[in-house]
């Protein structure tokens, strides 16, 4: 295999375009990044930034009709783009698994949760009924569900949101995947439950030697739990780098806007928030320039006419897409 063993996932020039009544909608455009083994990477963006579509395209879970995917996704040496569903089916669960955003809708409401875990074990690993049940109960215990053998027979409706998300994680882990895609895994949950789930994911990642892609709109979620961050805007990567660089040495004005417009617990009460005007753009009506230019305080004519490509920043592995980048303010704090 031509892939270096450290790189579990290599995404190269990946684009996902939906055919809609209003024309082609480029939900993800020319995205490239890679992921090491045992690494956690964060993908951050607002709604419509393409982060969810990106995570599904990487898995090959995009809808089957009215969609075009180009580029390449190398997952542990296997190309995912352009392959058949049955080929991808062989990788789903064992190589890559997914934790979905809303635990209320991602479990089958009329199937007992035990059966939903069993199914994977029996179909994918060919386990016997008894073995699968025993393993399912182990998995429920692993994700911290109290009295797992009783919960095995519960329907999803009988569990709280936090418990359901634990079950979703148990299903994802059933066949010991090497890569876990977590798409907004804590968005609908309360803060205290969110902390529990994020800690659980961290702990399981270490125990099971997984890599994790953590997709979220919440910078707080990725700040302390990822080594690198991808910032997305209007379907493109606008900045990518180590978590520290993105937070402290960001060069793209949008990254700064995202950081500064979110209120912080450490702010004094009545702190005036820094806002950016407008809202994320309509992907059907993108201009040829930088997508952020209409909202950007630093935008020049060039920004409106020509799209900036990702360029290397001072720190290794840190790039940004901007014609008028912010000056480096806080110096090099990368360790």
């Amino acid at each position: 295999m031509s892939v270096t063993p450290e790189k579990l996932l290599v995404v190269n020039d990946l684009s996902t375009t939906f055919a809609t009544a209003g024309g082609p909608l480029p939900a993800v455009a020319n995205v490239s990044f890679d992921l090491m083994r045992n690494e956690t990477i964060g993908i951050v963006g607002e709604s419509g930034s393409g982060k969810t579509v990106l995570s599904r395209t990487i898995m090959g879970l995009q809808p089957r009709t009215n969609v075009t995917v180009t580029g390449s996704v190398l997952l542990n040496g296997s190309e995912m783009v352009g392959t058949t569903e049955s080929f991808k089916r062989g990788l789903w669960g064992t190589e890559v698994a997914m934790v979905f955003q809303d635990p209320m809708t991602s479990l089958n409401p009329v199937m007992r949760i035990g059966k939903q875990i069993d199914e994977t074990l029996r179909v994918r690993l060919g386990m016997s009924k008894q073995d699968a049940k025993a393993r399912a109960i182990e998995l429920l215990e692993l994700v911290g569900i109290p009295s797992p053998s009783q919960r095995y027979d519960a329907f999803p409706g009988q569990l709280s949101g936090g418990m359901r998300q634990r079950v979703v994680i148990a299903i994802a882990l059933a066949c010991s995947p090497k890569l876990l895609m977590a798409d907004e895994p804590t968005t609908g949950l309360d803060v205290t439950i969110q902390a529990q789930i994020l800690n659980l994911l961290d702990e399981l990642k270490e125990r099971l030697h997984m890599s994790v892609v953590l997709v979220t709109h919440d910078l707080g979620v990725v700040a302390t739990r990822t080594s690198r961050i991808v910032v997305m805007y209007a379907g493109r990567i606008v900045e990518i780098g180590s978590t520290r660089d993105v937070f402290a040495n960001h060069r793209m004005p949008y990254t700064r806007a995202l950081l500064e417009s979110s209120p912080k617990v450490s702010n004094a009460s009545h702190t005036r928030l820094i806002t950016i005007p407008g809202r994320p753009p309509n992907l059907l009506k993108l201009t040829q320039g930088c997508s952020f230019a209409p909202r950007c305080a630093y935008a020049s004519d060039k920004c409106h006419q020509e799209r900036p490509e990702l360029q290397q920043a001072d720190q290794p592995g840190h790039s940004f897409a901007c014609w008028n980048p912010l000056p480096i303010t806080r110096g090099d704090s990368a360790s």
Partner: protein
Amino acid sequence: MTDTTRPLLKVRDLKVIFGKGHHAVSAVAGVSFDIFEGETLGLVGESGCGKSTTGKALMRIVEPSSGSIELDGTDLTELKRGGRQLRNIRTRMQMIFQDPISSLNPRRRVKDIVAEPLDCWKTISGHERDVLVSDLLSKVGIDPAVYGNRYARQFSGGQCQRISIARSLAMRPKLLICDEMVSALDVSVQAQILNLLEDLKAEYGLTLLFIAHDLAVVKNVSDRVAVMYLGKICEIGPADALYEAPAHPYTKFLLGAALEADPDSPIHSQVLEGEPPSPMNPPSGCRFRTRCPKATELCASDEPLAQEVAPGHQVACHFPLSITRK
């Protein structure tokens, strides 16, 4: 700006019970607080703690089971349901809802939505009404000439929330209840709305009850903050002081679980275990005791009453965390 001496709204022992008999759920189990004229009181808590129900009960959208709600000396709980007096007093207190899109009728024009309270009460009409509506729309950043005649279904979440704010201000209310008004919005839009709210509060001399689950958002807008758990207020105090030195163990856990967008912030491995008990069958004594590491027998037998730990800072706990100020 803040007249902290005169309470605009006095809430005493407010209870809301849904259902009857075995299935009764006390969503709000005895809540008391004051909101002073010109201040913003933040009401924060996790889902199911009763914060939204409290907000709705204050407007009597949800019927309180007992307790009193006094606005400027009038007890709302004594007014006849559906009566003119109750409808009238609602013009002095307004509410903004969580889901911006569902809070506007998709089949009505923006202008008519904003004018709805005026048309209900027929305070002004004709040209005067149109001028006021245009003025309100401009104030919230929507160009009345361009967008006034559009239907509500054509607007995005942030814009719908602006229209909702314009509508709520039409009758010049004194109190605005904001129920999770920014939680459905993207961060960049959320910041715009929060700033707009602060500006309008100053301009209209509003008093706010800001209900939200997001601790950072609540702190950013509030003068004082009340923390709810399982239908009761466990701590209330000045925003900065409460966040800096929480006296209730629950508040401390809640703040510890809040994620800071800062790679250097510590990960709290000490997270709150378990999940809140069912409000159908709440624990005896202190409602937090089943998850509290400091709970003793006293907590199981006696319900803690609110006690003052610092001026204006009250906590309902038998063993409040010590407050040390620098």
